[in-house]
């Protein structure tokens, strides 16, 4: 399509008396300059298009349009293959909210480095290359040299004219540098990942024993998530999954074996108290170090205990264990009684289960209906009260008016 020129001229409406004149059928354009009168300068894309038009499209614009469209699509396809979206390794660009941008570099220990580098969608899964890329991206964007030039806040005071008041504009840049320092060092990154704030948040709502025991507890959904969370700390990778209701005995056993022998790289150096900076006292230092060491050991122990507790809990609630035990028992019994009877036994069991399920469902439906009815009644009551209130108010207003 040709470029559309927009003309900014106010054009008044056509007068109602206007009648469209008919052009004389003999009217023609005055003859153009003959061929050869002008010689085109062979430059620019417009010239190339003109040539295409004359050479290949018989001066037909719509044919050229089609050709150009096809050409553009072809180029786009080639570009997409040649440089797949300027491979940013999947770092992407996250929004930087005000909170992140206003971080204080002095409080660096409390920062969420993944968020600072814009990697919060990847977190511990980010590869070193991705971290490197993200860091470059952020540095390019937030370099103080760039900021001083672009965004010096204007000052009203005549005394401060020309003085850059934006002295703290490299705060976020320092945060980026710190974040990169930590995340690019494998040891430091391990320490940070161990106490990753979002992980700690998620750790808060682990399933309790009570929950697990409750009636409508979805074992697989909850525990798959829980073990996925913890599997990041495993030295051995990959970690066997929780599996599903029909997992074989071997799979289930393998899973629990793995988790009872869970070998974690998690450690708690990150939470160490720092040695009092002002004091040179060796004793002071040693004391703090000792305390830190015991604290670390305590935390590690707690962590191990926690994982162990989780596995215990899972084991106790695992429906497959029951099934396996039952099957084993049945197998034993079958062995005793012979093969023939196993069929009906199994069937009756299945029927039993179905019945039980049905009953459960009915109970639930009933409960739900009751709850709905209760809610309805409550709503009606509230509406009635409102209406009464309104009526009273109107009456009062009417009285006042009178």
């Amino acid at each position, binding site marked *: 399509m040709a470029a559309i020129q927009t003309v900014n001229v106010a054009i008044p409406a056509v007068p109602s008396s206007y009648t469209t004149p008919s052009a004389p059928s003999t009217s023609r354009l005055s003859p153009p300059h003959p061929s050869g009168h002008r010689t085109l300068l062979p*430059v620019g894309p417009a010239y190339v298009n003109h040539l295409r038009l004359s050479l290949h499209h018989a001066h037909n614009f719509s044919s050229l349009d089609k050709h150009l469209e096809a050409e553009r699509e072809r180029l786009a396809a080639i570009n997409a293959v040649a440089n797949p979206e300027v491979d940013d390794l999947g770092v992407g660009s996250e929004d930087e909210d005000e909170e992140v941008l206003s971080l204080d570099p002095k409080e660096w220990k409390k920062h969420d480095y993944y968020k600072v580098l814009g990697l919060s969608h990847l977190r511990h899964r980010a590869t070193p*290359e991705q971290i490197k890329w993200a860091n470059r991206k952020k540095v390019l964007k937030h370099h103080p040299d760039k900021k001083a030039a672009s965004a010096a806040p204007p000052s009203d005071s005549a005394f401060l004219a020309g003085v850059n008041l934006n002295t703290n504009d490299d705060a976020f840049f320092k945060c980026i540098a710190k974040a990169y320092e930590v995340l690019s060092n494998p040891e430091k990154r391990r320490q940070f990942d161990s106490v990753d704030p979002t992980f700690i948040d998620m750790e808060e709502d682990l399933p309790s024993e009570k929950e697990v025991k409750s009636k409508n507890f979805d074992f697989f959904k909850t525990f798959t998530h829980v073990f996925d969370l913890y599997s990041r700390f495993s030295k051995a990778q990959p970690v066997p999954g929780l599996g599903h209701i029909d997992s074989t005995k071997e799979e289930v056993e393998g899973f629990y074996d793995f988790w009872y022998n869970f070998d974690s790289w998690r450690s708690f150096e990150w939470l160490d108290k720092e040695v009092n900076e002002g004091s040179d006292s060796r004793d002071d230092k040693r004391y703090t170090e000792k305390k830190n060491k015991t604290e670390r050991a305590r935390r590690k122990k707690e962590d191990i205990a926690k994982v162990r507790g989780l596995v215990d809990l899972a084991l106790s609630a695992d429906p497959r264990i029951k099934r396996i035990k039952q099957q084993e028992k049945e197998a034993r019994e079958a062995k005793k009684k012979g093969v023939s009877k196993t069929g009906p036994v199994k069937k009756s069991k299945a029927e039993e289960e179905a019945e039980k399920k049905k009953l459960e469902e009915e109970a639930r439906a009933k409960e739900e209906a009751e709850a709905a009815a209760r809610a309805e009644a409550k709503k009606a009551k509230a509406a009635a009260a409102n209406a009464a209130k309104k009526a009273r108010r109107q009456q009062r207003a009417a009285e006042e008016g009178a």
Partner: protein
Amino acid sequence: MSKTATGTSTPSAIEFNSFAPVVGINFGNSYASIAVLGKDGNAECIANEDGERQIACAISFHGEETYIGNQAKAQLVKNSANTITNFRNLLGLSYSSIPPLSSPPTSAPIIQHPTQPDVPAYRVSVLEPAPAPLKSNVNTPAATPRSEPVQTTRVLTPADAATIFLKSLLTSAEAFLGKKVEAAVLTVPSWMSPAQRAALASAAKDAGIPVTQLLEEAAAVASTTSHTTWTDGVEEGTEIGADRSQLVVDVGATSSTISLLSVRQGLSYVIASSTIPQGANAIDDKLIKHFAADFTKKTKIPLQVAPAPASSVADQRAEARLRLAIEHTKRTLSASPGAATCSVESLKDGFDYTGSINRMRFDMVAAPVYTAIASAVVELLASAGVDSKEVGEIVYVGGTGSLPGLDERVQGEVVTPFSRGIVQGGGIGDPTTILARGSAIQAAMLAGLPSGTAEDKELHDVILGEKGEQVNKVKATTRTIGVLFPTRELGGVFVPVVQKETALPTRRVVQVEVALPAEGEKRVCLEVWEVKEGIRIEKIKAEPTTPIDEDEDEEEEEEEEVKHKVISKEILLGALQIAAKGAKKAVVQVQVVVGIEGEVDVEVKEVGEGAGEPQRVHVPAP
């Protein structure tokens, strides 16, 4: 370690989008410049190793050393016999066809080639480095080799000189790009004969430059000015349409070329052009005469320059020194409104010279050249039948174009709201780099052409081959075609769609907002007219009497004649009416296609939801 951390993969370097390694070279007679495509896809002029963007076309031999560029120019003072300048214009010429010099040469003289018949050449004396000591297998000591370099003479043809010079440009460009140059476009003046062009191309080839095209200077200008970046940073309110007439004022060293270009949505051709034998050298001569006179006044030492007498070496050297020094003076004058100084150490007889010249004085000195250029502009416009008011844009080319006095003088003749190219220093309109940038843009465009199908191949052949000359000859409209919206008053509002001097075939789409009648039928009516544009010179107080005219003149009415653009309806090509859907206003698109034979197709439609069928009218070819 975190679970995905891998220690095996190497860090990948971040690669920025790299553009094709292409260069544009403006190879002038006195100065050359190189442009490459920057990271953002814009062409930019680059500096050579000496930090010069304007690289003097000079080669100098001194002892074992060879100087190229501005360093060589400095050699003109004491080593003029071994310094070669102005070699480009001699490319492809025979010795007998070179006009004799009017004044004694300031650089190495042109001689007849000692061995080849009728070939111009330069003879320079150089020191040949001593050969390495001979290695002998026998244990007897060889004859002691000479350790001193020997004085010999070397004969260079203009083509040799051009090859040496172009090679140095190529080295600079490749050093900047960090890669081998894959394609290059060289500028060539329009007056060069095919033989000269061939000589230029072969010199470039010898220098190792992969030349894809020799581009005429006017085309290089059009390449820059039709590029999308040209309209960047144009102030609001200044009109610079996709269809405009462009006046290109190219002030070279020895001659100036003035061309009137018709630029129609990137498609451009020269309407008329003329060349006058006046250029920057004339200004230089006048300026050094001015300074020499000032020197004589201050020191009582006689100094005759431009031309310096052949007998006085001191005067010749003083002239060469002054020529070098005034480069700086001219640049200062172009860049700042204040006075500029010219200082030369030991100008003559051991006396130093420091003088200054202000804008006014300089303009007075240069006035004859300015006037010559301005009158050439007037003549050109008159011969092309174009009024100065119809010029949409002035573009200056060459360093002299940035002298503010020139612009003032030319604007006195051509009233145009827009002129580009009086800002030196890398700006979009920088007159010193326009040609090189245009060449680089062209080189990039040529390198980016698809080359898969037979059609693409044919396209290549036409652009770069001989066949192109036939295809480039086009038909063009003689009069403007536009649409007229009737109004209550006599006449109406005229919107030009296809300007005159537009190459055929052409298509233009114009979008306008039209008010709709408050009552009655909601309709938009328009008439397609071929019009004749003219200029009405009006004395004050006279009321506009022509039925339709577009008063684009904002000038205050003074006791002078005022020019108005006048449009008179000539031929009614058709009339159209569409029913509009909008409430108060309708946005209407008018598409006009003028075919190769002059047939006209007009299509009018309303833009927006629920718009009706487009209305068409066809006018057969005349």
